[in-house]
């Protein structure tokens, strides 16, 4: 912990629904196996678009949420509910004082499917046929609101929006809620459901997406020379964050320490990352400092790496800058090679993956990395790779998750292995 007067925050619950599986276990095993969730889209609306591939969620959220509730919730809110229920159950469904339980769950875009559907209804049938649930379905804080209702969380429900950094930023905010004393437990994460014509058209208009339509599973290829853009995915990731004393008092199983978060803004261009990677390396360094973690403790980075020509080498340079010559000892994985890019869900799902890598001591592969970009000098895992404490490591093993968003938002999160404190001799016996 960076600052000794702050309470430690630990992760006691994990939940995810992704293109690889409807829960954490199935997602993680598919990830370790190097499975791609990218498919050729078959809907009619794909026809005029230059991009005909995406990574749809493996499990239909309506099956979990229920038909009636699903009428009132955007698909992104449904994903968040599914992932939050899993995370909450994984945490042991703790009894928490409602005013000590918070929510920090968000989305990059919000309920865009509901926005589009409502507009179609407005145009074709008139305003009075628009679903009266449209506003709560399209607002990007909708998932936070629904989860506060689901869990009875009254300490505050927050939805920070920073495009594709939103999920990671929410976890950082959740850590802060606990450190600042506002909550004992926070359900934090991100969600997205944006696989539809407007979004694909808009990202394609930026020339940001892969058009490798004939080889869907080969299209998302972070750090590979042949990469030509990102592939859109959907789903959600949620973690349960808890103050260490609260977790210990109830005998909770602790996955990891949510040790720190670092932020920066590029202040450079609204959608391009600053080419020198300065903003990214600042965020990573700030996260390590906040966590009180030395670079030598870090064994694994779940990179943001979206498979765009500009973004991936920029991040690689930043990792090199922060870790210096030791960067070669850090196993970097780009799991978007399998899940596609979940936008506001990405930082949360990838934090879940980073925590699983830490607890299982294995980094997932980066698939489709056939020919490493010559500008990339870090070691990217192409197969599931065991993680071992590095020689001369100053403390418990640590992993890093990066997430960056249009707007110039950079977020880095550090998770460390939880090492129980040695039992203190009781004062009577001492």
């Amino acid at each position, binding site marked *: 912990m960076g600052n000794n007067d702050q309470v430690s925050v630990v992760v006691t619950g994990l939940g995810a629904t992704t293109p690889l599986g409807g829960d954490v276990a199935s997602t993680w095993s598919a990830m370790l196996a190097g499975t791609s969730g990218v498919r050729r889209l078959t809907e009619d609306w794909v026809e005029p678009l230059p991009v005909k591939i995406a990574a749809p969620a493996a499990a239909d959220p309506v099956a979990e949420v229920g038909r*009636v509730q699903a*009428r009132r919730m955007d698909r992104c809110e449904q994903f968040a509910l599914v992932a939050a229920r899993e995370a909450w159950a994984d945490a042991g469904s703790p009894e928490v004082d409602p005013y000590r339980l918070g929510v920090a769950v968000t989305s990059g875009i919000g309920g865009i499917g509901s926005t589009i559907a409502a507009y179609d209804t407005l145009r074709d049938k008139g305003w009075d046929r628009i679903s009266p649930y449209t506003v709560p379905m399209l607002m990007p804080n909708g998932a936070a609101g629904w989860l506060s209702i689901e869990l009875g969380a009254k300490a505050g429900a927050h939805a920070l929006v920073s495009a594709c950094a939103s999920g990671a930023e929410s976890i950082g905010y959740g850590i802060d809620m606990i450190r600042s004393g506002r909550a004992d437990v926070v359900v934090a994460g991100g969600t997205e459901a944006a696989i539809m014509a407007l979004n694909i058209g808009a990202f394609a208009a930026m020339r940001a997406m892969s058009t490798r339509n004939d080889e869907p599973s080969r299209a998302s290829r972070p750090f590979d020379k042949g990469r030509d853009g990102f592939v859109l995915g959907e789903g959600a990731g949620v973690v349960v964050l808890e103050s260490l004393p609260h977790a210990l008092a109830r005998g909770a199983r602790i996955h990891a320490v949510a040790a720190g978060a670092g932020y920066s803004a590029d202040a450079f261009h609204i959608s391009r990352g600053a080419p020198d990677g300065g903003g990214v390396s600042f965020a990573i360094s700030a996260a390590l400092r906040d966590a009180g973690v030395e670079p030598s403790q870090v064994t694994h980075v779940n990179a943001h790496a979206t498979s765009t020509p500009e973004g991936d080498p920029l991040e690689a340079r930043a990792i090199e800058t922060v870790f210096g010559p030791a960067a070669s000892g850090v196993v970097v994985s780009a799991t978007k090679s399998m899940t596609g890019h979940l936008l506001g869900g990405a930082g949360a799902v990838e934090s879940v993956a980073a925590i699983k890598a830490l607890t299982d001591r294995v980094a997932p592969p980066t698939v489709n990395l056939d020919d490493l970009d010559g500008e990339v000098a870090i070691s990217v895992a192409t197969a599931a790779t065991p993680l071992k404490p590095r020689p001369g490591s100053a403390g418990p093993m640590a992993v890093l998750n990066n997430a960056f968003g249009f707007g110039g938002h950079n977020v880095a999160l550090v998770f460390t292995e939880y090492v129980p404190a040695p039992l203190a001799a009781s004062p009577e016996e001492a």
Partner: protein
Amino acid sequence: MTDQEILAGLAEIIDEIAGVPADEVTPDKNFVDDLDIDSLSMVEIAVAAQDKFGVEIPDEQLKDLKTVQDVVNFVSKNS
């Protein structure tokens, strides 16, 4: 249309929109207190009823329709 037919049609709508099983939609039930239907769902139900029965339910009338029987009476009187 008989009251019985209106009730059956209304029960179908309420099942679709609010997930209340048709056999629970009996005339004496209050939408809010008994069927747990909120004001947003009542708007949906009113629009669906308009389509099904061809009877427009103005907003100022809708707020006075508290029970299933109230809606059946309204539709019956105005169709």
